[in-house]
């Protein structure tokens, strides 16, 4: 068992992971992600991907499902145990 750190968009479908932080690439985006509900310690899992370039993603966040694009998801850092 080892802990693997990556970004949300890199997860395979249905791979459960825990949010560990956010990358600060775009100003304002982190606050938006936080306001809609993403936070450190929350469990996330990719449910579906769009046909064109695998974007957007539908992501389960706790008991919510949120659609976001790959670029947004790449700003969310996650950790999972394999």
């Amino acid at each position: 068992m080892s802990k693997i750190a990556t970004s949300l968009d890199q997860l395979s479908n249905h791979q459960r992971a825990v949010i560990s932080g956010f990358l600060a690439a775009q100003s304002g985006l982190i606050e938006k992600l936080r306001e809609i509900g993403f936070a450190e310690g929350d469990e996330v899992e990719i449910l579906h991907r769009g046909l064109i370039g695998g974007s957007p993603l539908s992501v389960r966040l706790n008991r919510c499902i949120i659609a976001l694009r790959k670029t947004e998801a790449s700003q969310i850092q996650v950790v999972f145990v394999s």
Partner: protein
Amino acid sequence: MTIRIALVGAPNTGKTTLFNALTGGRGKTGNYPGVTVEKRTGNYTSNNGKTYELIDLPGVYGLSGRSSDERVSLQHLRGEIEDERQPDMMLAVLDASRLQTHLHSILQFKQIDLPMVLILNMMDMAQRDGLEIDLAALEKQLGFPVIGVTAPRKNGRQALEDKWDTLVKTTVKPTQGRQLDLPTLQAQARKIAKSVIKQSSASHDLTQSIDRVTMHPVFGPFLLMGIMFFIFQAVYTWSAIPMELIEAGVGFLQGGARQIQPEWLASLIGDGIIAGVGSIMVFLPQIVILFAFILLLEASGYMARAAFLVDGLMSKIGLNGRALIPLLSSFACAIPGVMAARSIESERDRLTTIMIAPLMTCSARLPVYALIIGAFIPNQSVGLFNLQGLVLFTLYMTGIVFAILIAFVLRHTVTKGPAQHLLLELPGYMIPKMVDFWIALFGRAWAFVRKAGTIIFATSVILWGLTSYPQTGGGIRDSYAGTIGAWIEPIFRPIGFSLETVIALVPGMAAREVVVAAMGTVYAVQGNEQQVEMGLAALLQSAWSLPSALAFLAWYVFAPQCFATLATVRRETNSWNWTLFLTGYLFVLAWVAAFATFQISTRMLA
């Protein structure tokens, strides 16, 4: 002074449903984020007979106010709107199932510094999902009252309504500690949520199962196309019998009107009013069927999935999947569509969306299309499909394709800018509440009938007068309407429109479907009696060539013929330039499309 209470909370938590239930209001509800884009007020009378003013506001995720509808909500809560008193209290509404994810927004709202009560809504759904919340513990930790409700049900609201007066009287402003930043509030909220959620089973089992089909990367888009196609087929096939009945009724009334003396009155009633109003009433069944489908899609939770499915495509043209929701509501009417664009954060995206919203075929165009298709396109099967339904589908698709092209051009020129974010909550699926469905459907049908009885009635009478006088015996060209029409006729001659069509187009500026009523009147005034009783479609068949009919359809895919939409665009963009740009480009497209259609089809048929 009446106590003002504002409903506040994340989008799609049931604020409007609660508002409607308490005030008897008819605010539009739906199962997707961003249904409400405007403030709405109503009165609520408590069990003890005391009256309160309730304010329903567009949903906000927090205090940053990124889109214009969010900003308006926050300004209302903070009392920053001119001539509007700040609310005395807030009812913060939270979806119980989403407590863990959204509780931090409640801690943020606390900073607005108004007395606050937390309403945990949709308790029934939370219980169904096996979620058990300790309300007393939550109340204790938050420091303000917490009430669990199921807004649509009377007994689901009882806990709130029983305590209403006491709640309002006793709730005070929350004590303000140090202003904490969002990450800290989130950590606090998660801790509180964890301690009050007693039991939690796996979430959204049903929703996730349905999503496996509807969100499938390959099957999902096909299903979306299939649903849209099915709707257009249904609009045609299901409406046939009721339409024939209404048509027969109109013909019967017209026959009766001939018996009236004096003759001019018979003409006014038969050729003016019945021909005008009757020719539009025929399309009521189709309007009802179209709206029934739109309402079901909105209430079920599928709408947000549709936005997800087209986002890949939308991003290619530089738009956001979020824009799909305003665009989809534009199929009903561009006016709410243009207003719904308020929920789009980026101003550039919002403007682009507004500019293409009128290209979505609104329900007012349906009668126009249906009339021409019914008269000129044979009602036969092509493989599995009905040819008339197929043509209708093509017209809708033409609008969509051009909307995509225009958006692409705009995003690479005037509204150029970086790609926007997509962050859209996908709601759990719900079975639409039948009562709400019927009320909303009746409301739409009634609005259509009322329009026929007012605007269309009035234009029919005026147009009858203008086409019937002065009576020189020289036909429509010598009438007042003919004189007016003759001025603009040269513009329309190259695209195959007759003088009668041009005359009908002018009142059609008021609203698109008026053109149908106007043609009913114009042709009734000059037609012979048997033809008139056979209906407008039969009249057109003998009066128009096929290329003219096709050109007319092409014209209406683009024509900016609705003053109300243009006025709304002016208000929402706050710019004459954008409004004139929209009007201009639609007019040019309409003319070019009609010209090309007329010239090409004339040559092909020659």
